């Protein structure tokens, strides 16, 4: 079965599903939901098969397929995955059905102005573009998916979001578009300077002059820094995350934004290795500022969804540190962080969404003592919070530890300052938990009827797989690190980085 075109089928399948769902009649929303869920589960099975076909110790780029597209320009439909892309594809395939299940009632509205099938079709379109962007092995194809991805997300936020959804959607779009333009310029430049091809494999061997390389790196980096986002390009995310429906927000920060950090690893470092080294101190600085700055802002938020968005910016700082530290532990940690953050913050967004949907408000001051009314939901919120603050034994701890320990071996100041972030993380999570679920019961809360309903069966099917994965990967992360590590090592050889030896080598057991 190894010749099966996994990646192209995986990319196309959700799109076909989207068309099917979109064609369903508007007055049968339940049917649309079920088809969408079933379809996304089928995609998950397919992704599982692709995982099985991937050899952890094999070639870097596997499952490769290539079809001609614009041969005159050296542009082709080339798909291939390394370990980094593979884990992200698996995460996408896993999160989308859970988000569909979590968003079951998000598009329902009494006025019936919003189309339910369209909502779920858009999620499937988004899945296609996200799979495509991670599976692409042609720079132009990557760029196309990178840009097209905005469209379904724009409509999901702008049409199905909460208050200020228009403002948030436009802001999201403008920022992303601005980043996209930088990337477009860089892509064209790369095509010119790199020998008129946009095939990733060929470009890694291209010989660029120092000046050109730096400009091209900067173009890509700006696009990625806005997308991730890194400080100071982050202000769109709290608005978008705050206004988007919770499930969409989970997709946005859990998956879509990872394109940026993935792009840096897949494109910026291998294609512009000298420039990457040259810019690394600046990138590390931005990442470290982001860790501290966003964590402090998260402490100060009074809106649950915006708070989670800010925690996410801080987490992206950790990923950035891991990428630009250039050691195998930090790099593998950064990729693992992308996965674990998708699970942990995804869960946090979904649970917050469940609370917000019940209360009809995302303001923390509208809660208080909710643990009395919905103890199980409060427990899941606490679990998600603990995962977000990287409690040992849970998956995010492993990635944060790897990032920091790997960074420490080469750059102590960055590692030490970043470590302050783990204290701040405890601050924003526990204070949020305290104000939301603990303390005396907010008297208005018990009069809100939905607040008396604890976790439903549907909701427990959403959170249970994520909780199990967060625990299992926290105790036994090896299946993921074995897949990720070779790809990271290969990336590090591009930038010519090797891990430093211990300073007291004779102690090695």
């Amino acid at each position, binding site marked *: 079965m190894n010749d099966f075109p996994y990646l192209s089928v995986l990319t196309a399948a959700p799109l076909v599903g989207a068309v099917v769902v979109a064609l369903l009649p508007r007055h049968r929303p339940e049917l649309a939901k079920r088809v969408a869920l079933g379809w996304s589960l089928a995609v998950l099975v397919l992704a599982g098969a692709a995982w099985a076909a991937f050899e952890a110790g094999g070639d870097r780029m596997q499952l490769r397929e290539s079809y001609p597209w614009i041969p005159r320009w050296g542009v082709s439909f080339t798909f291939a995955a390394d370990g980094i892309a593979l884990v992200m594809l698996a995460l996408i395939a896993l999160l989308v059905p859970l988000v569909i299940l979590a968003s079951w009632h998000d598009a329902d509205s009494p006025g019936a102005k919003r189309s339910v099938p369209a909502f779920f079709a858009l999620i499937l379109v988004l899945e296609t573009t996200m799979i495509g962007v991670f599976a692409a092995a042609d720079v132009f194809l990557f760029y196309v998916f990178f840009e097209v991805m905005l469209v379904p997300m724009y409509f999901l936020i702008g049409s199905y979001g909460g208050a200020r959804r228009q403002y948030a959607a436009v802001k999201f779009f403008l920022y992303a578009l601005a980043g996209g333009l930088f990337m477009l310029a860089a892509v064209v430049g790369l095509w010119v300077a790199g020998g008129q091809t946009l095939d990733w494999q060929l470009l890694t061997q291209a010989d660029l002059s120092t000046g050109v390389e730096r400009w091209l790196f900067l173009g890509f980096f700006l696009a990625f820094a806005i997308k991730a986002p890194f400080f100071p390009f982050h202000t769109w995310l709290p608005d978008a995350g705050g206004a988007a429906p919770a499930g969409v927000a989970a997709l946005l920060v859990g998956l879509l934004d990872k394109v940026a950090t993935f792009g840096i690893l897949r494109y910026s470092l291998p294609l512009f290795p000298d420039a990457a080294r040259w810019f690394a101190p600046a990138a590390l600085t931005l990442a470290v500022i982001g860790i501290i700055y966003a964590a402090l802002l998260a402490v100060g938020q009074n809106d649950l969804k915006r708070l989670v968005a800010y925690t996410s910016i801080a987490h992206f700082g950790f990923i950035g540190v891991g990428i630009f530290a250039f050691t195998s532990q930090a790099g593998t940690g950064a990729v693992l962080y992308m996965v674990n953050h998708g699970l942990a913050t995804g869960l946090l967004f979904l649970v917050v969404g469940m609370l917000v949907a019940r209360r009809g408000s995302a303001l923390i001051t509208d809660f208080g003592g909710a643990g009395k009314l919905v103890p199980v939901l409060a427990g899941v919120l606490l679990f998600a919070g603990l995962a977000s603050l990287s409690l040992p034994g849970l998956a995010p701890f492993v990635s944060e530890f790897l990032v920091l320990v790997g960074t420490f071996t080469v750059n102590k100041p960055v590692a030490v300052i970043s470590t302050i972030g783990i204290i701040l993380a405890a601050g924003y999570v526990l204070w949020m938990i305290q104000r939301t679920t603990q303390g005396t019961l907010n008297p208005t809360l018990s009069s809100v009827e939905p607040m008396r309903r604890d976790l439903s069966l549907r909701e427990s099917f959403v959170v249970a797989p994520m909780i199990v994965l967060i625990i299992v990967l926290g105790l036994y992360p090896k299946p993921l690190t074995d897949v990720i*590590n070779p790809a990271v090592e290969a990336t590090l050889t591009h930038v010519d980085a090797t891990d430093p030896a*211990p300073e007291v080598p004779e102690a090695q057991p």
Partner: protein
Amino acid sequence: MSELSEASGLLGYVWLLVAIPAASAAVLLLAGRRADRWGHLLGCASVGAAFLLGLGMFGQLADLDEHRRAVEQQLWTFLAVGDLRVDFGLLFDPLAAVFVLLITGVGFLIHVYAVGYLAHAPHDQTHESAGTARRRFFGYFNLFVAAMLVLVLGNNYLLLYVGWEGVGLASYLLIAFWFSRPAAATAGKKAFLMNRVGDAGFILAIFLLFAQVGTVQFSGVFAGVAGMSSTVLLVLGLLLLLGATGKSGQFPLQAWLPDAMEGPTPVSALIHAATMVTAGVYLIARSHPIFSANLTLQTVVVSVGAATLLIGAIIGCAKDDIKRVLAWSTVSQIGYMFLAVGLGGVAYALGLIHLLAHGFFKAGLFLGAGSVMRGMDDQVDIRRFGGLWRFLPITWATFGLAWLAIIGIPPLSGFFSKDPIIAAAFDRPGWTGWLFGGAALLGAGLTAFYMTRLFVLTFHGPKRWTEGQRPHESPPVMTIPLILLAVGTVAAGWLMSTSVVDWLTPVFGEAPEPHGLLSHGQVTALTMAVVVIGGVGGWAMFRNGTALAPAPAGPVVTAARANLYGDAVNAALFEKPGRWLTRALVYVDNKGIDGIVNGLAAAVGGGSARIRRLQTGFVRSYAMSMLLGALLIVGAFVAVQAGWFA
């Protein structure tokens, strides 16, 4: 370190020690209301089983040759990236064995006690049924035991850290057990946060270890200590010490421990007196090759211990809440342990002996306090007690024994454990011997004073109860653990002063001959004199009761009542600036950064009017932008293709 032996027989099942309470915790927390009726029984049984297992393993370990008393068990590879390799591996050696027995033994007694204690707990505060609250409690309690066993059984620093934060979580959950009480919720958060400050130091120490020696496993690390520079050793030790002060409530991270008394009393007994708060002592004892290798480091540890034992004792004299007095007493007694492990050499074992003795008598004191509170309608103010010995005879007798033990009256355990520490402190050369020995001696007098005050005000003197109180003794499920702990208090000190030193010798090495300023006999005489002065003074001052309201007092008492301004300093240095900074940043982010970036975008796009227009007729503009973008890219390609740039 002694050589490893083959993990045969029972010793091949060390993992079960962790797995049994962990599995029980999972069942209790996941089973839902179905387990409400029997959950607490499972919770007790799992810890009891772990204790019996631990006892069997202890026996097998003791049968091994003295220099090969350690077994390791590799369970699975936790991390393997580059040169970093960390196994999920367990180490069962004399040090770990002592802790396993303390955690599961005292833990089991406190679990049993908790069954009785929770039967009368105010569960309605959280809208739960009594059964659900009890099940949740035992779930957290088992989780704590499992995490604590990971902490002491891990064979590497990372696993120790996993258990370390795990007990922090359990502590947080249990302090905030009555989560609807704002004070409990705040205290839980405070504990976790202050612990995290220490944990940050600990994790940095782990990074440093990996950078230095390429491994975090104990055996590899200790083999590499000789190759480390003294600066590195100092930094490493200080980072570990920061972690230890956080977990053990030592200066400067002591402020969370007294607030932790918001948790149910069995929690205070098990976690915040007998076991978890001694984890810092364990960390230093486990890392003894690091701490013994640097004299400055040892002096810092001793100073922290001496300062904290005085801080705790002074504040303990001024408190009126029975649990807070005991909490500050815990801070102070752990100070003695830090002092001891900081002295190094044979004093490591002394610190651990005091830790074990303290585990028994302080657990007994807390459980006795819980019994008193139960009999007095949850009253905690010792000014409102008095004359209770007649009404709670078993509690009075067991509490009394523990009181005599903690102040160090022979032949109870505290005498055998504390007295040698004071003697060892005087053994330090020169003025530091006088300084630290004097501090330890003064602490012993203060301990005698505040514990006597507590005992007399609670059980003797005139009744100062509130209206309508009918004190009554607790049921056997609570008094039997009290009696067993009292038996341990009587027996343990003498047993431990002989055999535990021998038991731990392979871990810490032989004792050098003392060369002290004073002979051991002189120190004992001095200590007894100080203790008698403190005790008799306390009895004389409080045998006729005390005022019901705080009397005006001099600066020392006022400061002690305010916890020596520790909280005030924290608030002034961290809390207030932190709040101010956060508020300022929120403002800057909303106005400044967002404004600048938007403004930049607007300038590029031709003014903010354009942006507003984009917002209104957005889809059209979007199509326009895409079209422009597409044209641009196509144009560029064509241009290149045509060779314009060639």
